[in-house]
């Protein structure tokens, strides 16, 4: 039974439209503060930055000063490269990470062997692999994808493992009682039971993929949003830096949202549970 007594000391839930008003006010304030800092503040550091309107104009102009806007092909090439790399790495992470996570969770033997190896490699921050990846892999593309894959792989495997181990023992026993074979248990209990955790892992993996992709692109790539951001800095095309950053944030958010959507579609039963108790 929800109650109306104020819960933490001073939060009251505001009416929806008042909230949207305040959100709009918040954005306007942010834009204004940004503009003021760039133009009216005494600090040289701020004055060097591009102001919001400069960025928007460049971003939406059909003939952008620095050649990158929603109307130029290059803009979409960079987006394509980044998205392709992120999805390739994410796909690999799913193909390898989910099965490994499932078997590590389900079979103690697999966990014994793989567990220690993973905990040996995990503390090494994935981006430290960039130099080695460039050396080992032929060319830049596989190296960047490998590093991005690594980050997503650890997140996927770990969450899948946690998901499988969280399945209550009674489900396994119920299946056994009803005559399920070992193979049946895998497909009828282990995989569906771990799905919610798997999708949590996939969301984290997608976020992590974009996170490390940027570094790989900045350090070693010729195309991609990370490259675009770094190159615009070197060529002193400052508004394009902000365009690159905003696009990265947007595409990153959309891809995570896509993973959430697929999850919701695949797990209609889970949705009900949330709906009921939500």
């Amino acid at each position, binding site marked *: 039974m929800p109650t109306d007594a104020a819960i933490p000391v001073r939060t009251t839930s505001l009416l929806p439209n008042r909230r949207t008003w305040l959100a709009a006010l918040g954005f306007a304030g942010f834009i204004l503060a940004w503009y003021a800092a760039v133009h009216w503040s005494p600090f040289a550091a701020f004055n060097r930055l591009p102001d919001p309107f400069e960025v928007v104009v460049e971003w939406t102009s059909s003939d952008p000063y620095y050649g990158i806007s929603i109307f130029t092909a290059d803009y979409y090439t960079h987006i394509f490269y980044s998205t392709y790399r992120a999805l390739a790495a994410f796909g690999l992470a799913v193909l390898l990470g989910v099965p490994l996570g499932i078997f590590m969770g389900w079979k103690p033997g697999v966990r014994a062997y793989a567990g220690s190896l993973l905990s040996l490699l995990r503390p090494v921050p994935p981006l430290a692999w960039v130099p080695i990846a460039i050396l080992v892999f032929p060319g830049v593309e596989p190296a960047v994808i490998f590093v991005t894959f690594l980050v997503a792989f650890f997140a996927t495997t770990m969450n899948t493992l946690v998901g499988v181990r969280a399945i*209550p023992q*009674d*489900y396994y*026993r*119920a*299946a*056994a*009682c*009803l*005559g*399920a*074979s070992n193979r*049946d248990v895998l497909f*009828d*209990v282990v995989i*569906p*039971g771990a*799905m919610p955790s798997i999708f949590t892992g996939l969301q984290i993996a997608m976020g992590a993929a974009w996170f490390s992709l940027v570094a790989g692109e900045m350090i070693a790539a010729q195309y991609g949003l990370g490259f675009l951001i770094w190159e615009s800095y070197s060529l002193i095309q400052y508004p394009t830096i902000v365009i690159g950053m905003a696009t990265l944030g947007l595409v990153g958010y959309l891809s995570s949202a896509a993973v959430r959507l697929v999850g919701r579609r695949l*797990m*209609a*039963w*889970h949705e*009900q*549970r949330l709906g*009921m108790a939500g």
Partner: protein
Amino acid sequence: MTTTASHPPEDLGPRPQTGGLGIANVSKVYDPEGRAVVALDDFSLDVEAGDFVAIVGPSGCGKSTLLNILAGFDTPTSGEVLLDGVPLAGPDLAPRPGPDRVVVFQQGALFPWMTVLGNVTYGLLKQGGVSRREAEARAITLLAESGKLDRIADAYPAQLSSGMQRRVEIIRALINDPRVLLLDEPFRAMDTVNKSTMHRHLLELYSRNRKTIVFITHDLEEALFLADRVIVMTTRPGTLKMDIAVNLPRPRKREMMASDAYLALREKAVFAVSEEAKRAFERGEREMA
């Protein structure tokens, strides 16, 4: 320890041919870090095919251990269990759960990712020999017979009340025509009204499709109201403390709980159970301090 053969009046369906359980001197000893803990100590019980037996006792009296052995999730350290004369569990027998003795679990184990129909037909499909259409038809009829549950055949368990989930889980077990139905405190977290509704449904299913039922519970009232025989267990090590024959007529009615016969049974059992409960509690507090 009084053992009187129980002969419930025959207004129930005819006794099934199968489902006779013979539990002979079963013991189970766990030794976590070398401290030998005797969960079950030389426990024997003979259950005639079609009898409804309730096993009552506080936590730590070995009733779950016994259920795990009967269900094939665990092996006894010594002693033997026979089902219709055939060895079912023994120290050297590999434990093998199967559809001839299905368990209804305490926390509930309907597969949340399958619809009600998916859950109920799961057993039939896994054992094979039945087409999907045939399995679904049987499931629908059985669901319809027990309180028109066919209306929710396509719902997911999360959408159902705990009472409905429980009833579907019992039907999921019964559709496989098991020789023994093992119920592990199925109505534990329910309030009085829902619990008595569940009792009515279980007894209806039992009278329509008579099976041997082993019903594990901590609630003496529930045991006396449902069962033909109530076995009171001692707390660790679990042994048989009292074997009470419940000769109340069937079908059981709420009003019977005020009858002299019922009060006499209650008188006998109440002390036995609460005595064990107090002993178990003191042991628990000692271990905690």
